[in-house]
């Protein structure tokens, strides 16, 4: 869930990226920042208030092999303002803004067995004709759905799995 702060950072980064035409590059930068900050050892040091802020910033600034210049600046800003925990939320919100700008929808399809490339293609095409938007499909394999498929995009879910049907049946029988 994006906090108000994360939204503000994400919007600033997004507007900058759009201005420079660097959406893809910024997406990669945010991903790298998130990955680095997710390391508990790194986070422990960067969140430690007993270490002076400029020394903490120096960890990132003095390691040019980690990030390029823009990413380093963002990372320093986050360290300085004590927002390193917001990194994943900033990345999510940035993705959302980028998707929205490009008219893309991210969808997740859950099935019991791996979908074939052909089926995946069919689901993507069906959904994009229905929503009239480009669809980026993520595939999740979860044996608990037993059969059928479950499609989720945005806040919406269309559930046609055997597990959901069995649940409906269970309720029908239990209600008498």
């Amino acid at each position, binding site marked *: *869930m*994006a906090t108000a702060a994360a939204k503000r950072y994400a919007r600033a980064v997004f507007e900058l990226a759009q201005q420079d035409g660097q959406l893809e590059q910024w997406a990669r930068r945010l991903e790298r920042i998130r990955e680095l900050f997710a390391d508990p050892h790194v986070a422990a040091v960067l969140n430690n208030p007993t270490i002076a802020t400029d020394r903490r910033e120096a960890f990132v600034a003095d390691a040019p092999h980690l990030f390029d210049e823009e990413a380093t600046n963002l990372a320093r800003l986050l360290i300085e303002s004590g927002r390193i925990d917001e990194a994943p939320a900033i990345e999510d919100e940035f993705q959302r803004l980028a998707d929205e700008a490009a008219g893309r929808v991210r969808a997740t399809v859950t099935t019991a067995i791996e979908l074939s490339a052909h089926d995946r293609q069919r689901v993507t095409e069906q959904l994009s004709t229905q929503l009239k938007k480009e669809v980026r499909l993520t595939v999740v394999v979860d044996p608990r759905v037993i059969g059928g498929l479950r499609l*989720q995009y*945005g*806040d*919406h*879910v*269309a*559930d*046609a799995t055997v597990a*959901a*049907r069995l649940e*409906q*049946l269970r*309720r*029908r*029988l239990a209600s*008498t």
Partner: protein
Amino acid sequence: MGISTKEISEVIKERLKDFDASLVSADVGRIVAVGDGIAQIYGLQNAMAGELLEFPHETYGLALNLEEDQVRSVILGEFGHLHEGDEVRTTGRLLEVPVGDELLGRIVNPLGVPLDDKGPIKTTRTLPVEKIAPGVITRKRVDSPVQTGIKAIDAMIPIGRGQRELIIGDRFTGKTTVLLDTIINQKGKDLYCIYVAIGQNAASVARVAATLEENGAMDYTIIVAASAADPASLQYIAPYAGCAMGEYFMEKGKEALCCYDDLTKQAWAYRQLSATLRRPPGREAYPGDVFYLHSRLLERAAKLNQAHGGGSLTALPVIETQANDVSAFIPTNVISITDGQIYLQSDLFNAGQRPALNVGISVSRVGGDAQTKAMRQVAGKLRLDLAQYRELAAFAQFASDLDTATRNQLERGARLTELLKQDKYQPVPLGEQVAALYAGTQGHLDKVAVNRVIEWTGGFIRFLKSDRQGLLEAIDKQQALDDSLFARLNAAISTFNHQFGIEGYEDQPDPAAQAAPAASKKA
């Protein structure tokens, strides 16, 4: 029980055959935080205000706060098994409760789940818990009475069918007793009763149920109970659920009575929910919409016109005051919403005046039209007499010698006050009330010692039943007193007073008894 496994499997087969699972299509969100009966859900962009939300493990909730990218919801029932990250779905429905005749005689929770040991309830219909009150066009003037069986109320603060009459008083002043007397008095009267217990301890609910059962009143009564141990969400919806069950009868053209015992506790539960939902607190920490909480509930009481079935729903809300303070926030709100209030006072209660009704400040704003004619004929003077009595009594405490008129007034008032006392769970039928009050207001009790008035009343009613048969029934039936009934009453009072040993009265035979043999001789 002779159910074979074969029969069961037949039923299951039948159900499986026409089972047509549909594709589930819903909005989903995820729980971000859960606690205090509140869930914070991320997502659910399209959730509606007041929509029923489905949590895992057949738990349901109500969407109450819709915010930019999250929804705050109250959880109906237990929430210990819900975790952060659980999926929540919209249902597209409002909260509904089962309704129907099948609920009569049962104790249920606010979701309609039975709490007694009488097995499942096979209702076929449900009604939404929150509903817009009937509009002006569908309504009719309140024109028929709810007989409470309590002399003081029926005579001076009459309640009409479709009215909202508040019962207000401190703890332990007999508020619940007024409700129970009223319910017990509806035996055989086509008035269905719903008793909603909110935030009471389970023992009190059990006691109420036992009292109603003993008096044979459960046959036409539903008890909706959200006890003190239930989550605040259930205490909050309990009156609405009870009201929906009453509306079912009203919509079918029948008459129903809803007792909400008590709305103070519901306001407390709502205050708790609002605080945990982070709504801004106002006066006494209640949220800004606490007035609407009660007004939308009580507005659903109505008398429908003939074109809409002619049913009615009467509301008897209860408010508990602290140290007789009626100017606190919730009491003033509910007083202003209702069509009158019955005010019970602890000092009257402790002085032995039971029901401990303060007739001076209790009023009924619409019920007067609905009072039966017989009662209006005898009780018209009662209110005035008692009002004057109270004024003089306060004044006369300091005066040593009083003129005769004042002393007579005081004597009369003391006897009338005594006449209005009655035991709990013993409602008095209309005929008996009229006969006793007639004797009192006409001054036939003035020579009876004050401490013998209760004895006199009991004896008089017994006398009427044994020696003047048909008189009480005639008053009950005609609901008005004509000359012949007045004559019979006067004769009966005179005879009984003579037997009671009061000077100036003599035996008078029943005028109707003289007419009857003459008529039979002719025939």
